């Protein structure tokens, strides 16, 4: 590029800011994954770069590349990630709950145990009045 328009400069600056923010979120996730005490807290930390961080980094990359083909592919990556990471997080959390890796005392509200107990009572024929 011999002639740089001011918009190219603006796009580069914004892309640099986005890349920095995304990299910082990844770093925060690394710190959280090491320092948080239990599985759910670590999952919470790990989710940050998976969605917002990825979107920021890929937006930064799109602003730097400035071609629609690249933007379309990067959008595809973001869509895949948005579809898959909730499923993966759900599976990990479910497996953690079922294998007893989630301490009762760490939870403020435990709806799953309550609902499971209610379902079991219903299976065994007792019905809670008023439900």
């Amino acid at each position, binding site marked *: 590029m011999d002639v740089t328009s001011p918009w190219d400069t603006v796009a580069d600056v914004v892309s*640099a800011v986005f*890349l920095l923010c995304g990299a910082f979120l990844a770093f925060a996730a690394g710190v959280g994954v090491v320092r948080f005490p239990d*599985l759910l807290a670590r999952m919470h930390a790990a989710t940050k*770069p998976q969605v917002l961080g990825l979107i920021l*980094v890929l937006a930064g990359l799109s602003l*730097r590349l400035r071609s629609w083909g690249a933007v379309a592919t990067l959008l595809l*990556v973001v869509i895949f990630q948005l579809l898959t990471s909730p499923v*993966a997080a759900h599976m*990990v959390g479910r497996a953690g709950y079922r294998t007893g890796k989630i301490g009762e005392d760490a939870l403020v509200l435990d709806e799953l145990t309550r609902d499971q107990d209610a379902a079991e009572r219903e299976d065994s024929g007792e019905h809670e009045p008023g439900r």
Partner: protein
Amino acid sequence: MSDTVYLVVVIGCAVLLAAAASLAIVRAERGPSMLDRTIALDVFTTTLVGAIALEAALSRRTDTIPILVVLSLVGFVGSVTIARFASVEPEDEGRIRTAEEVAAEDAARREAEEADRDAAVDPEHHGAAPEGEVR
């Protein structure tokens, strides 16, 4: 923005990403359970995606973008598989066994295999021709 300034920003990002990857690996090594390791590897994969995107942004190349698509899918398959099939682990599976324990286990397994092989051969009829065979 001049390329030098951009290079400095990219180096800063690279340092952050390298720190994130190292911390994730620390958790993967330490992680008390398989699921903690899964999460750590998820973070590592995401960091890898970020690193590849960073490199593509620095050199303005588009040919590494398909790698990002593949990585975002492969990470998903890995963590779902572990959560579904490998999250139940026996009590001392994470322990590294000593050489004596490994040798004892090997000997027990070999003995069991030999016993199986001996049991499969009927000593009464070993080597005899099958009944009704015409030579």
